[in-house]
Structure formats: C-alpha cells, structure tokens
C-alpha cells in the first residue's frame, strides 16, 4: 500500500500483524532489521524474566474489571504469551513466590511494549514517522 523507509511497497496491516506475532517482526518487514533485533531481544527478555519470576499471565475474571486490562496487556505479547500459557507449568503464576509481583510487572510491561511496537510499525508503514 504505502512506502516505508526501505522504499518498497508495504502493507501497514501486515506490519501490525507481524509486530503482534513476534516483537520486532513488523520492523524487520519494514526493513529496519537492526532495531527489530533490539526490540526482539528486549521484549523477549522482559517476557522470559517475567515467566522466570513466576508472574501471572492474566485471564479475564468475573467481577474483576481490571483483569480485562491486564489480559489485554499480556495478550499484546503475541506468540510469547501463547507459548507461555502452553509451555508453562503455572501460567497463572505462583502467588507465594517472592518475585510474583515483579513477574507480573515484567509480563505486563512486555505485552505493553509490544503493543507500542505494533503502533510504531503502523506509523512507519504509513509514513507518519520518519
């Protein structure tokens, strides 16, 4: 559709979808390989540390409206979130762990970072950001 920095035709929605699937993939699609690697490393490390700290991959709970926002945030991590839920023994986290709260903060941050990357990939693809 529109031309990104690489000077070739790119579809902003494909960039957004790729960015959601894995951190940095949208930027790699737009030809920004170096920043894509940095984003992939930072977001993945944040997510993996969150899982290591036995944080919680939130799900929507009745009567807990904030859990909707938290679930939206962790689902922003795309495949990392899905892989975490499938592969982890305790996707709901371990409340008794000393690092539980830190883990939750890391996981939420990883998801929110990736949501920002999706918006950034869209802006780059439509030429809104230089």
């Amino acid at each position, binding site marked *: 559709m529109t031309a990104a920095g690489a000077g070739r035709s790119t579809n902003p929605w494909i960039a957004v979808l790729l960015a959601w699937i894995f951190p940095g993939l949208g930027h790699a699609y737009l030809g920004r390989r170096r920043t894509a690697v940095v*984003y992939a490393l*930072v977001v993945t490390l944040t997510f*993996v540390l969150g*899982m*290591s*700290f036995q944080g919680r991959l939130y799900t929507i709970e009745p009567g807990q409206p904030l859990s909707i926002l938290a679930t939206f945030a962790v689902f922003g991590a795309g495949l990392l979130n899905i892989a975490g839920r499938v592969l*982890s023994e305790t996707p709901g986290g371990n409340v008794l762990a000393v690092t539980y709260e830190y883990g939750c903060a890391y996981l939420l*941050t990883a998801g929110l970072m990736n949501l920002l990357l999706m918006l950034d990939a869209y802006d780059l693809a439509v030429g809104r950001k*230089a």
Partner: protein
Amino acid sequence: MKLLLALLPVDHFVIMTVYALLVSVFFAFLWRSERRERLVLFAKILGALVLGGLAVAWLMYPFPS
C-alpha cells in the same frame, strides 16, 4: 526458566535495575533515531527510574510494613 532465575539474584534492587535497563533501552530506540540522542534518553530514563525508585523507597522507609 529456573536456570535464569538461578542466575539472577532475587534482590529487589537488582530486579528493579534490570527492569529499568530494559525499559530504558526500549524507549531510547522507540523515541529517538540518532545514536547520541538515544544514549542521552537512555541515561535520562534509567536515572529517573532507578533514582526515583530509591527516592520512593527512602520515603516509605519510616512506614511499617
């Protein structure tokens, strides 16, 4: 996962500093495009997060848990 946890000490300050490092790198790359500008923003965010965290911890010190 457990190996990673074993490598990283369970220490409030270390966990907070690692978090600050990751967030600083992320926003430095997201918001700036020049190398020098990125370094400056990275230092600012890192300093604000770590020093801000220490300041809040110090302010909360007198309060019982």
